[in-house]
């Protein structure tokens, strides 16, 4: 056998074996006996795994003892970097996605936007059929009508009859509100935006560029 690569001895295998057993048993006992909690414990067992991998790479695979230059060590390091990016990146992105898009909340929003009234027999709160369409026209800072009476599952259209792009905010200038997850609507000039009235109650809205233009709508169940 070539002298250059495997300069392993029984001793190196035995020490690798014993160290690996130790680094397997310790995290096992720590986990089973649960002396430490949560994230700390997770960090400890992953730490033990990483150390054990380096023990085996060194004592069993004899990395770093081959012919120079050590292309295999270089390749190993490059692979570790790629793994770090792939695994770390996936976990980072997916945990943020999970954090920012709670699955229940996402399902509700989807059900609303797609008008899915029930999933497997469970009511989602979304409207099954749209009933009446109410219109609110905005022109030259005038909002008409200023008070709209509607029932749940009706729709409400804000029509921009002005020659400029407009925006309305929900709530009052001093206290903002959300309606169906939205805090504001924007209508380009001459166009409208329509919302489905899922939530019941009385809601106010105003034109942020002209705070005296206000209105409200009342949604009855």
């Amino acid at each position, binding site marked *: 056998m070539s002298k250059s690569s495997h300069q392993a001895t029984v001793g190196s295998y*035995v020490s690798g074996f014993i160290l690996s057993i130790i680094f397997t048993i310790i995290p096992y006992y720590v986990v089973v006996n649960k002396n430490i909690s*949560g994230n700390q414990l997770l960090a400890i067992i992953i730490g033990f795994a990483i150390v054990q991998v380096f023990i085996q790479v060194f004592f069993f695979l004899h990395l770093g003892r081959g012919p120079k230059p050590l292309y295999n060590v270089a390749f190993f390091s490059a692979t570790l970097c790629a793994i770090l990016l*792939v695994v770390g990146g996936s976990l980072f992105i997916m945990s943020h996605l999970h954090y920012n898009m709670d699955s229940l909340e996402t399902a509700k929003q989807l059900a609303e936007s797609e008008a899915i009234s029930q999933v497997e027999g469970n009511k989602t709160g979304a409207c099954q059929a749209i009933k009446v369409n109410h219109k609110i026209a905005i022109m030259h800072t005038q909002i008409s009508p200023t008070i709209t009476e509607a029932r749940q599952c009706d729709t409400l259209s804000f029509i921009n009859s002005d020659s400029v792009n407009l925006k309305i905010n929900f709530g009052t200038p001093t206290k903002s509100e959300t309606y169906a997850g939205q805090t504001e609507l924007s209508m380009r000039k001459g166009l409208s935006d329509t919302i489905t009235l899922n939530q019941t109650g009385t809601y106010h809205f105003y034109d942020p560029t002209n705070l005296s233009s206000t209105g409200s709508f009342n949604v009855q169940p």
Partner: protein
Amino acid sequence: MSKPMNHEESVYDRTMFGFWVYLMTDLLMFAVLFAVYAVLNNSTAGGPTGRELFSPTAALTGTLLLLTSSFTCGLAMIAVRKGNKNQVLFWLTTTYIFGLAFLSLELIEFTKLIHEGHAPSSNAFMSSFFILVGTHGLHILIGLLWMVIIMAYVVSRGLTSNMMRKLALLSMYWHFLDIVWVFIFTIVYLRAFV
């Protein structure tokens, strides 16, 4: 290179490096499967989590079996260096038995899970579990088949330089699978009980 090399030695080193490159790409594949598993860890769709499904003792037993087989595989390589054919066959057989025991344990676990209704199609968590651990098991199966072929060659042709090179590749492959298992043991089995 500092010293001139004979032809055989350079073939040996190039083969080892080529195989090392393969192992690293394989490692990347496992890394992706680990990432998928970690992301889908809680996606049980109301089904049981790993804590209710896995047995830490069985996982520890499997780990020690595979670790021992990795160790005996190393001893086989030392016998190869000494040119002792019978010792090579003895240690390879030991390695094979421990590897087979490991694989059987894993198959028993899979069968039990599927029998209890926790199949790969049950939920995303089970899918990622079976894919990750199953891919490793498939590698072990391939390694065992390869080992049988190599042992047959050693019996019929003896320890030629060609055979020594193949034995070195096999041992690298086997140690590599043990290293991947360390992470499966930690991330899949131990982590379920944290």
